[in-house]
């Protein structure tokens, strides 16, 4: 008796949650928890990105704007409020999210007027505008960047606290993505993806729907940026606004499965852990650029639907096999005769 998909889903969710909560307690080595932290950050960003781009089909390559804005918002906020390291700085994380969301409104209004391919280009252009601003405005500290307060925690405790904050944001983000996907709103986004004009002709308020999804995807991304900035203790414009960030989350979402719920999580888990291992064992250098580029090409061209959808379309076949075997087991002696 094979359990229903929903039952499996809920069970899987609970297991994942248990792992999420228990992980840093079981593996308290700071190197491991640092990697885990970064994985969580990317899970948040990819899930949020996917909630917009995966469902609507509008590939945005400018979400680093939200990540970087969130990062700078936290850094500037901490400075203006004269916060010293500790739990209080985490209170600025929601602010990072709000800042990103606010920026997403004009960004979205401008960018979403265009067709899909010019949309991608315009998100890239706006991203570079922000990067330029970060390099040149006084308030962002220019090319020397900004610092964030340093909390006085032990190495293990430091990582654990950041891990759990990120985990909490992740749970909220996944809940949001889930809510969007299974609501009427999600249906409208999917319709926009498949045939936007037709959707419009059927009464879907396409512009508002797209904008709302865009802003919704910006908020968790901004929060991730804020936490990230606080963790690192220091941000620079080229890392807060990094074109590789955009490519990475797109790649992770494509790898896992664009538009699915678990896909972004899987993609971030696999690819970010790989990337972290890579930078630890090889000098960062330019090798990972080559690997990223190559990996992206492989994924887009050979696995266009991503891992999760490919696996789940295999699932019915696997079930069929199991069913067949269960019904007609070959008698042992006959099998031997048929050479």
């Amino acid at each position: 008796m094979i359990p229903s998909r929903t039952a499996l889903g809920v069970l899987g969710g609970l297991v994942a949650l248990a792992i999420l909560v228990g992980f840093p307690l079981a593996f308290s080595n700071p190197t491991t928890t640092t990697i885990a932290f970064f994985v969580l950050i990317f899970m948040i960003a990819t899930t949020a990105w996917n909630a917009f781009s995966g469902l609507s089909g509008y590939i945005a390559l400018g979400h680093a704007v939200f990540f970087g804005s969130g990062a700078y918002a936290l850094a500037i906020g901490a400075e203006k409020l004269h916060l010293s390291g500790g739990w209080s700085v985490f209170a600025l994380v929601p602010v990072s999210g709000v800042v990103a969301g606010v920026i997403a409104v004009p960004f979205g209004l401008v960018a979403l007027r265009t067709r899909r391919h010019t949309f991608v280009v315009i998100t890239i252009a706006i991203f570079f505008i922000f990067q330029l601003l970060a390099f040149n405005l006084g308030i962002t500290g220019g090319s020397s960047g900004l610092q964030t307060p340093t909390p006085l925690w032990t190495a293990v405790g430091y990582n654990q606290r950041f891990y759990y904050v990120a985990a909490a944001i992740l749970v909220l983000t996944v809940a949001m993505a889930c809510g969007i996907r299974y609501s009427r709103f999600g249906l409208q986004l999917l319709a926009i993806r498949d045939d936007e004009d037709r959707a419009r002709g059927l009464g879907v308020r396409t512009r508002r729907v797209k904008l709302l999804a865009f802003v919704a995807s910006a908020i968790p991304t901004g929060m991730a940026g804020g936490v990230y900035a606080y963790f690192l203790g220091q941000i620079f414009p080229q890392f807060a606004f990094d074109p590789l960030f955009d490519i990475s989350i797109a790649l992770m979402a494509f790898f896992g499965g664009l538009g699915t719920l678990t896909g972004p999580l899987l993609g971030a888990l696999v690819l970010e852990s790989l990337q972290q291992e890579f930078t630890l064992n090889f000098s960062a250098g330019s090798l990972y650029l080559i690997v990223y580029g190559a990996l992206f090409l492989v994924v887009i061209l050979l696995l266009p639907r991503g891992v999760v959808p490919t696996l789940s379309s295999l699932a019915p076949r696997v079930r069929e096999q199991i069913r067949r075997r269960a019904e007609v087991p070959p008698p042992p002696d006959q099998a031997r005769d048929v050479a």
Partner: protein
Amino acid sequence: MTALLEIDDVKKSFGGLRALDGATFSVEEGSIAALIGPNGSGKTTLFNVMTGYAQVDSGDIRFRGRSITSAGPDRVFALGIGRTFQLTRIFARMTVLENMLVATQRHEGWLRSVFRAAGSPSERERAFELLEFVGIAGLSSLPAGNLSYGQRKLLELAYVLVADPEVILLDEPAGGVNPSLINHIIDRIREVNRAGKTLIVVEHDMQFVMDLCERVTVLDQGRVLTTGSPDEVRSNPAVLDAYLGGDDEEEDDEVGAAVLET
């Protein structure tokens, strides 16, 4: 009495091409009207401007006396005019049921849709009702992209009905469909008309048109050639000319009559 839908001297060009050159006709409420004409006569363009998918260069389109010339597809839809597409436009990656559910939210506040489940029980019920009406209820959980061409046509019909429009524009509902399915489609269309809806059908299949429609409007080179009952139109020599380009008269009459018989 004003007709339900009036098309008044509509002109539309694409680059140098005159797709519509002063088309004028009207449709009475509760009727089933046909729009026929040779390829390139402007039928689909006319549908497009009527439903807001294209804008006219000049002329007026009125629904219940009010001008809808500049309305976009969403406004036209909200006013109660639905249409199907010649090359079926369905949401291929969503299931048949989900396709139907997208169409059910005409009256929704857009922000509320975030907090609504994909389909309320009553909406699902209605969706299933319509799927049964057209005959594809059994396919409701399949991705719409997996449907055969004929099944897609039925799906198109189903979801143009979801919003309960007053007027339905059908763009080649029988085009490319298995002959055995065509009678079923004619039957469903008659049923819809009996429920009080006005229908305008663009079709190449002459038998289909003659069987189904009360009034036939012939379009040629962007202009209305003539309007009348199916019999009147069938025997009009100008119509035969339009379809054949008019060279040798006698031969044309025979061939043309044969064309209109099929």
